[in-house]
């Protein structure tokens, strides 16, 4: 527990530094934030276009889909804020051979790596998502109960847990392969499965996205929480798998690290 506390503190301090640097180079930050928002918006814009130019998706009307896009942007914003710098950090670390320096620090290396991902540029996306969510909730005339908010927050939390697992696996891959080529893109494309309403997928895929690759947790669950379309049993299974995957990824990490250090680095 103490290590977790120390890592959270590390994350906090590093984030503070990055925020003050962003404020120093305000112009660069504004541009970076806008660029991040533009890139993140591609998915939602495409989904919106497809939805409006066709009969739509089963089980969703236009306003609900807009809510979904709002949640998507919100989640993308959180991802970038918490882990935006991570891929770059890890790649630089391995290619410069600095991993050794990390291993002699008092906190576990993977913790330090995960705590170094803060990137303020995601704030624009987060805010855009929040605005769209707010607008949709109003347009749909939804009553948001405390329970709904709780379930929303829970889904976001477990979504972060799942994403952590993914990032840990990414870090393992970089250590093993060193020259990652476009591994970034592969990770990006896989997460794409979680960024569409579940209803468009076949039954088999739906089950997969809720059980052993519970990507539905990222956007579908928070959206359903707000729309009061929650399934407790299903959620419990998904959340459990998220924790499991985190544990598996950490074990994998220990394996990779042992291989790295025994190979002489």
């Amino acid at each position, binding site marked *: 527990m103490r290590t977790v506390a120390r890592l959270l503190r590390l994350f906090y301090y590093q984030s503070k530094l990055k925020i003050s640097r962003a404020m120093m180079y*305000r*112009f660069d930050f504004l541009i970076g934030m806008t660029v991040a928002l533009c890139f993140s918006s591609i998915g939602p814009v495409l989904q919106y276009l497809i939805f409006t130019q066709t009969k739509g998706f089963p089980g969703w009307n236009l306003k609900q889909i807009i809510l979904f896009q709002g949640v998507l942007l919100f989640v993308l914003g959180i991802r970038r804020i918490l882990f935006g710098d991570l891929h770059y950090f890890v790649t630089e670390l391995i290619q410069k051979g600095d991993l050794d320096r990390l291993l002699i620090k008092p906190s576990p290396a993977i913790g330090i790596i995960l705590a170094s991902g803060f990137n303020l540029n995601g704030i624009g996306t987060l805010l855009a998502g929040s605005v769209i969510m707010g607008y949709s909730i109003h347009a749909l005339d939804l009553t948001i109960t405390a329970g709904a908010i709780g379930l929303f927050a829970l889904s976001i939390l477990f979504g972060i847990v799942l994403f952590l697992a993914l990032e840990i696996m990414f870090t393992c891959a970089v250590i093993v392969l060193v020259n990652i080529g476009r591994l970034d893109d592969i990770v990006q494309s896989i997460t794409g499965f979680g960024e569409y309403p579940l209803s468009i997928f076949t039954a088999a895929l739906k089950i997969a996205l809720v059980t052993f690759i519970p990507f539905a947790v990222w956007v579908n669950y928070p959206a359903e929480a707000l729309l009061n379309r929650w399934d407790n049993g299903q959620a419990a299974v998904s959340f459990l798998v998220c924790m499991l995957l985190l544990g598996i990824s950490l074990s994998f990490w220990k394996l990779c690290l042992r291989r790295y250090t025994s190979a002489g680095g």
Partner: protein
Amino acid sequence: MKPLEPVIEVSHLSKTFRVAQRDKSSLLSSLSSLIHRQYVQIEALRDINLHIRKGEVRALIGPNGAGKSSTIKALTGILYPTAGSVRVLGVDPWTNRSRLASELGVLFGQKTQLWWDLPALDTFYLHKQMYSIPNRTYQANLDYFIDVLSLHQVVKKPVRQLSLGERMKCEFICALLHEPQLVFLDEPTIGLDIFSKEAIRAFVKKVNREKGTTFIITTHDLSDIEDLCNNVTIINHGGIVFNDSIESLGTYFSSRKIVDIKFQKPIDEHELRGYNVMSFSGMAASIEVDVERSPLQIELQKLLGIGLIQDININNPSIESVIKDIYSKPREQSLGTF
């Protein structure tokens, strides 16, 4: 014997920059700077006169930010002068850059011209195409250089596998393969061990002797200068502050001598008051003597009287201290001498 023709003739070269002032600290000022920029005039070069003859090995040195790079850029046609004229190999470099390029060789110690993952031979072949070197000349030159520099196996290995010394030798081949008349060497021995340095210096002297190639060397390594160069040009504060042979540089402080004394027994520092002591450590002292003020004979006799001498050396001030002295002269004092 016909007089050596000039390779570089620079007259009254001046360059003034207009640099925008930018204050990045606040959003408001960066926004306002988008609308109205404040400019500052910077005189990078003032009234430079430079003449370099064919076959010379000239050192072009100066502290960082002194105007060296600007001068070289003007010589290579990348910088357009505000005033004055520049003629390199008889033409104006600014308007004839690509034509001049075939007669120019460059070596940047800190940047590489070699394709990293491929054997140096591949880069050499590319140069053959780029500079349209005829087959016979190419092969002859290549064999010659590889022989002189002992690179027979080295040129076949990927460049990234070479040591710094090996790589630098290959860079030299790149610079000289097309038999340029004029070669710029920027920090050619940086980071090299003593053997590689000596090999490179011997190589430059050989090429200079046998092919009459003119070399201009920019370096902070003073032993390079002492070993290679006939003449030294020092640029500071945008102007030339010294332009003479290497011997003159050595005897720049013709009136100064450095006396290094080692005493048999430790002496009190107090005994050396009245002398210009450069360094002192109990039993040894380094003293600068100005023979214009007082003849060497008298100073020596006084020093010998202080204590029993174990060892004594009398030298001219090192080139290093000369250069340091020249570098540190403020603007007003240094210009106008040449």
